[in-house]
Structures are given as C-alpha cells and as structure tokens.
C-alpha cells in the first residue's frame, strides 16, 4: 500500500441526490485514515436499475462508464453494500470472458470496497474518534451482508463510538422490502415487508436506526415517518464520522 | 397399451437426442469411462467426523440420536435376554402380548419358550397386527438411523402397518456412517444389487402438517422400540 492511498469515492446515486452528508462522512472517515479522496464527475449510478430490469445493454454501457472513470484509483469505495456488490460481483459477468472489458472489470472489482469494510478489512482500523449519545439498532442490508460478508465490521467500529449503546433487533438480517424498483412495482408486498421490519425496529427500543445502504434507509425512514415513529434514521457513516449535527433522514434541514 | 408404449419409446429417443445435443459432450470415450468407473467403484465423498469414534461410543451416539426423535432404546447382553425384555416392554406399555415377525433365523431362534405369554406369529403384517418385531440389517450412528431389508426374513409391512414396531439390532451391526452400511450391503447382496426395499428409519412416524406441530404416529408406527443385543 502506498503511503497515502488514492481513493475514488463512488458516491452512489441515492447519496448524491438525497443525502450528501453520507458522502462527506465517508470522505472524513477515509481522510482521517490517511487516504486521499477524489470524486470523479463522470459517475452517475452503478447501473442496478437497468441490470435488475433485464436491460443488459444499458447496464454494460453504464458499467463501462464507471470502469473508465475509476480504474486509475488505488481503491474505489462506496458507502453502500448494494452498489459495491454490483461493481465487484456483477460487473465482470457483464462482459465476455477474456475480453478487454472483462479484464478491466475484474481489475476494478478487485479494488472496490464498501466503506465500512474498507476501513476495517483493508485499512485495518479498529476504532473511530466519535461521540454519539444514544441507543442504536443496526439493520444488515442484504447485499452487504450476503454478497460481501459485512456483519461484524460496522458493529466493531460502532463499539468504539463514545456514548453509543448497540441494541440488536430481531431479524436484523431480513430484507426491509426495498429491492430497488421492487418497492414501487410490488408496493403492497414491499409494504408488508417494511412493516414487519419497523415492528422489529420498534421492539428493539432504540432511539436511532442505522444501516449501510441508503435505499434501505429511505425505505425504513419513510415507513417509520408514516407510522409516526420517533426512531431517528441515519447512515452508519454519519455516526462513525461524528457528523450527526445534521437532522436525521426524513427530518427537516 | 401399444399406443402409449410407442409414444414412450419415441419420447425416450427424443429425450436422449436432446440431452446429447445440449450437453457439452467433448470426448465421448472419456465420458463413458468416467461413468463406468464411478458406477463400478463408487468413490466415497466427504464423510462427517461425527461418527469417527470407538465402537462403544458409536452405539451411544446411535442411541442419543434416535432417542432424540422419540424412539426408545434398551440394551441387553445376550440374545437369550430378548424375549423377557420384550415381554416386559409389552406389559409396561399396556400392549397386547401378540407379536408378528418374519422368518428371520436369529429372531426365530430366540428362547420364546421362556415367555409363554407372548404369542408369536410369523409372516407379513396384516392390518390387525398391533405389534411387530424386525431385525435391522444395520444401525447407523451418525443420525440414529436403522436400516432394514425387505424379504421373507423381515417383511416390509412389519415396518409400517402395526402401531408399535420393535427392532432388534446386534451391537456388532451398529456402524458409524451410511457408507459403512453400503459396504456391508454390497458384501451381502452383491455389487449393484439391492433388495426390493431398503428402509432407513429414524424413529416413529411423525407429521408437522398442521401448524407445524409435531405429532407422532401419522400413518406408520406410533411407537418405535429398539433392543440392542451385545451378543447376537
């Protein structure tokens, strides 16, 4: 590893649009760990909406764009397990074996990491300097958990946040019902799933819900809000970076 | 039947030609060799370590496993002790003292004259039979599973029709794994040959089809009792 690894932040379309503070929290965490962080302008989205709708052609075009924009960095880091999984697990499969694009996709895949896993597994960070007075519960987002094996990393770092108590919920590993376009295409089923999730969140008696993926967070925050719940919702990076002075997701700024 | 028969023959050749077309056949001779070798000399796959223990512990493991699925087990020292053990089991469980068993030599050679109250009948089970007695070919420790073979010695109906099934197994027939049982099976039946029915049984019949509540005695025996005989 070079003295100051050069990291390309894949901001993700949802953080770009809804929650820039997640991006700044990610930048702070990585800079504190000694990284140089840049944000290529030529990025839009990882392409999952097209990929999961069966549109291979557009997916490939978007993937090529991401590969070209990020391949010069030492690492590519995204504050999302879902987008990271797309780049690291699915991009290579989009291209024919042995083709130039396949090789470039594989090279990118090898250096792409989800934010918290990057901090813990790659940079070997075992604690953060942050304070958060409250009880939090953590939802394991599906792609991060099952595609990337992210489970203990966020808990380890949260354990080092002063004043923070982690209260696990039941069925933390069960899908919240977001699923990208699923939540609008099958909104009734999605609603049943997120309702079950908010029940589990409520039963955990935490005052803040954390997770590592904005899709899930917007879904759960939107449901909690509709139900009149007092549980606040934040991306885990905000708490780890000590950037919690901004209002939580779904509260007025 | 002819029409259906012909259709089946046509279907067979269509299916085989589809398979051959869709499969990545490559070197046909090599494929055939791989299949021939696997069938004539079946390789063992990964075998769990659980039952890789001394024989006495295998017996204990077998007991533990099958008792966990509601079978009852007792161990006696000698074949001569079996009738008395049986008689007291029947008495303790308020069961009729009539017993159905096949022509198994070892079972028929037991000293039944010591328990004149027990009425022993031979042959396949009939619906009226309440209690049956079989001898297991093997007992597999890893999951607490009895292996019984069909035939005149231990007819299959004994395993399923009566409410209570009692199984005698020789301690030396307790093995660790299924694979060990298959090795013995090939020795007794010949390679590639099977009895008409081979029953692997772990405990009495059960169902969980109503609200996932486990209920014993769905269709087969409500009760399974096993007598392990040290010297049979």
């Amino acid at each position, binding site marked *: 590893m070079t003295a100051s690894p050069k990291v390309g932040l894949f901001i993700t379309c949802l953080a770009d649009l809804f929650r820039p503070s997640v991006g700044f929290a990610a930048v702070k965490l990585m800079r504190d760990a000694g990284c140089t962080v840049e944000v290529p302008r030529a990025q839009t989205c990882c392409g999952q909406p097209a990929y999961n709708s069966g549109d291979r052609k557009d997916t490939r075009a978007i993937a090529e764009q991401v590969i070209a924009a990020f391949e010069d960095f030492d690492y590519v880091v995204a504050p999302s397990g879902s987008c990271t999984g797309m780049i690291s697990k699915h991009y290579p499969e989009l291209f024919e074996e042995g083709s130039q694009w396949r090789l470039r996709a594989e090279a990118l895949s090898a250096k792409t990491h989800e934010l918290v896993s990057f901090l813990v597994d790659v940079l070997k960070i075992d604690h953060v300097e942050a304070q958060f007075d409250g009880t939090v519960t953590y939802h394991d987002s599906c792609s991060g958990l099952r595609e990337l094996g992210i489970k203990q990393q966020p808990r380890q770092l949260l354990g080092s946040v002063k004043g923070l108590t982690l209260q696990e919920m039941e069925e933390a590993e069960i899908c919240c019902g977001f699923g990208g376009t699923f939540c609008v295409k099958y909104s009734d089923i999605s609603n049943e799933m997120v309702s079950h999730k908010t029940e589990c969140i409520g039963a955990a008696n935490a005052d803040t819900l954390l997770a590592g993926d904005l899709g899930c967070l917007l879904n759960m925050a939107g449901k909690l809000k*509709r139900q009149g719940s007092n549980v606040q919702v934040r991306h885990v990076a905000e708490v780890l970076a000590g950037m919690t002075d901004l209002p939580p997701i779904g509260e007025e700024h | 039947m002819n029409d259906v028969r012909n259709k089946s023959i046509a279907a067979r050749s269509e299916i085989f030609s589809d398979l051959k077309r869709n499969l990545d056949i490559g070197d046909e001779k090599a494929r055939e060799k791989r299949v021939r070798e696997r069938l004539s000399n079946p390789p063992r796959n990964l075998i769990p370590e659980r039952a890789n223990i001394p024989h006495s512990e295998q017996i204990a493991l077998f007991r533990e496993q099958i008792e966990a699925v509601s079978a009852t087990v007792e161990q006696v020292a000698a074949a001569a002790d079996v009738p008395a053990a049986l008689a007291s089991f029947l008495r303790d469980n308020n069961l009729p003292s009539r017993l159905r068993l096949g022509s198994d030599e070892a079972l028929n050679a037991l000293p039944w004259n010591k328990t004149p109250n027990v009425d022993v009948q031979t042959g396949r089970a009939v619906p009226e039979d309440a209690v049956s007695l079989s001898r297991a070919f093997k007992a597999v420790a890893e999951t607490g599973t009895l292996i019984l073979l069909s035939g005149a010695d231990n007819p299959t109906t004994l395993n399923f029709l009566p409410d209570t099934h009692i199984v005698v197994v020789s301690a030396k027939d307790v093995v660790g794994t299924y694979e060990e049982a298959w090795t013995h099976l090939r020795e007794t039946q010949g390679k590639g040959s099977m009895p008409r029915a081979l029953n692997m049984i772990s405990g009495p019949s059960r169902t969980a089809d109503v609200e996932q509540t486990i209920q014993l005695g769905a269709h087969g025996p409500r009760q399974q009792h096993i007598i392990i005989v040290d010297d049979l």
Partner: protein
Amino acid sequence: MEIRSPQFKNNAREALVDENLQSALGKMRTGFTSKRAEARARLPEFDDLRDQARDIKDHTLAHLDLYYEAYEEKVTAAGGHVHWARTAGDARDIILQICQDENAKLVTKGKSMIAEEVALNDHLEEAGMEVAETDLGEYIIQLRQEPPSHIIAPAVHLTRSQVEKSFRKSHTHLADDRNLDEVSSLVNEARQVLRQKYIDADVGITGANFLIAETGTSIIVTNEGNGDLTQTLPRVHIVLTSLEKMVPTLEDVSTILRVLARSATGQEFSTYTTLSTGPRREDDPDGPEEYHVVVLDNGRSAMIGSEFQDMLRCIRCGACINHCPVYHAIGGHSYGWVYPGPMGSVLTPTLVGIDKAGHLPNASTFCGRCEAVCPMRIPLPKMMRHWREREFERHLTPKLSRTALGFWAFLAKRPALYHLSNSVLVRLLRVLAFGRGAIGSLPLASGWTRHRDLPAPERNTFQELWRSGGYE
C-alpha cells in the same frame, strides 16, 4: 391446473388481507429457519457437504444420458418398467393406461410435486377412479380442493381450525360432539380414514426424491410413512419422477441426503428414507407385483446447456421458500401455479412460459437469502435476473417501466446532463416537501408514497456541494 400466475399482483393483494393466511404464515416465519440453523450448527461439515452435493449433481447432469442408460438397465433387470414422457399429457396417459390395465378403482398417492405439475388427479378422476392423497397435508388440501402452497408443507397456509372445519364437512361420520380441538385428534382422524384406503387401493403412486443409476433404485423421503404404505400394499406401484432426479451411486445419494432434511426441516434425517428396486421378489411376502417408473421431461432436457441448467440441481427441500421474505408476506398460492417461492420463480417460467409467469422472477428484492441457504448452491437470484433479461429482450416488460427505464438510462449514460437534472430534481422534491423533512404524496411515485413517506433531499446534490467545496 389453472395458471393464476398472470394475476400475481391481485393474488398477493388478497393474500395480504387474508387473516387466516397471515396467522399461518406468521408461525412459519421463524420455525423452519431456526431449525435449519440449529441443524447446520450441529454439523461442522455442513457447508462443505453443500459444495460436494453441488459437484455431484453437476457431474450427474453432465453425464445424464449415460447414467439413465445404466439406470434403465438395472430397473429392467430387477423386473421393473421405465416409461418416458415428453410432456405432462404423456405422463398422464401412461399412468392412466397402467391404472386401467389394472382395472383400478382406488388409487392411493404419496406426495408428489410432479403429480401436481402434470395435474394427475383430475385426469384419473375423470376416468372414473377415486384418488386418495395420503400425505396429511396433501389430504387436507384435497378435501378443500386447493393446490399445495408449499413443496414440503402443502397445507402450511391453513390454521388448525380451518383444518377442523374441512374435516367436519367431509367426514360425515363424525359426531358433532367429537372433539377435534387438538392437532393430535385431527391426525388420528386422518389416520383412521386413510388406513382403509391403503388396504383397499389397487394402485399406489409415489414421487421420487432421487433415482440411483448404480442400482436402478428410486428413493422417497417422508416423515409420515404414508409413501411406504402407498407403495407397499397395492398390487401395482407407479413412481412418477422427472429427469433431474438422477444420482450416480449410494455414496452420492448419501451426501445429498445429509443436506436434504437438515435444509428442509432441520431434522438430522427424515423418519423414512426408502430405497425401492423393482417389484416383489420370489421369496417376498409383501410388496407390489408391478413396479413402473415414469420419467417426465416437460422441458427439462432443454434446460441442459442453458443459463437455467443449475436449477436442475434442485432437490425440492424448500429451504429457499422457508427463508423467503416475499413468500412469508404472501404465501404460496399467490404465485399461481405448482411451485412457489424462489425455486418456483425460476422453474415456473420454464414450465408454463415467461409470458404467463413474468411476475414471479420480478417479485424479488434479490435479498439473496434463498441462495445463501440452498443446499445445492443454486444461484437463484441470478437465474431470476436471467428471466428478466429474456423478458426485456422479448419486450414483455410493461411499457411504462420500459419507457421510464429508457429515460433514466439515457441520463445515466450522460453524466453532465445527469448532474444537471439531479440538481433540478432536488429542488423540485424540496418544493413538494413544503418545508417538511418528508413528502407524503408524490403523483409519479404513488407506489412509494401510498405506504410510506419519501424523505426529502438535502438542499443540494453531493456533486454540487463537492464542486463548491463542501457545506460551507
């Protein structure tokens, strides 16, 4: 069986408000999953066994023609008959013919999903035979004239009191004051009624979990023992099975059996695993005098070599269904055909067509729990995505989604334009939030706002802020 998959959304909507169903589903949400997890924890080699099970099945599929040749030879040598059926209709005809040759009046059946797939019961009943399902769950749904809602627990959608009602309606011999409050009394009642059926039956039909090439053997795995009574007592035993059930040897099936029950119900081993080879032997006092195996293709041979070949590894344990949060929400009937849940979402389109079953592979969040628990390591989400690709290529995707996706992709491929439109969108959304932190109703995103608020964005996009030096 009528295909109700095109009405998936309606089926699901009805299921979500069905109180009995929701109560029954609530009970299965954690039961199966914790039992599987415990079984896995008890066996350290479990995940390695899954790898081997996958490899065994891949090897078998790659040599399927040869293993079938070996198998057929063994069955014939043991005095049995192998019949081949290209389609569901062919399988029905073969079985009907065997039953008619036997002059059958009463046919008993063990649980067989292939029999559901070919809609066997109706066919035999139309020919004047009585067909008695003997698996308790199958028996219950036969009384109710319903299809199964789960491949290993056909009546999992019902509550005890619904079962009681069905029994009282059909078992007219029951006295009004006969107490059926307990599950045990229901099981006993079914046991008594079915006992006589086993004895009176002319033909017994079972499925097969596996076929063994080495020995010409068919295997059934049950807990109730109904399959054994079904196949042992009548004069004729018919095994209805499908092309992918083959395994080479006893050793190979042992490996797969080690993961089957543990994945399905969390049992160490099912109560009854029965290996059948041919009809009654010369010195056999019991067992069927005729033994027929009907091997169904129904599109499976075409899956070999396709992107759906991995699905042929499926051993029908139901683990993917037991762990599926979508299934937990809507139950099995919503899927509209024989196979529900993730495995059905891959298999059903191959059997009834993606034009009819298009909703199934789409109604998934790709949460990946199915793949994570599949004992045969079938990449179910990946194959659902393959179906979405086929749909997209054939222009079966709904027009509105396709247009919206096209518009989005146009922007996503043009970063400058994309950032500009995002800047506009942020401002628009903030207007619609009316100064609140969340939007309660959004005309073009009613699928979202019908059930939940949409958190409002911050004032600027990240890209805007980053270029202008942050929040300052």
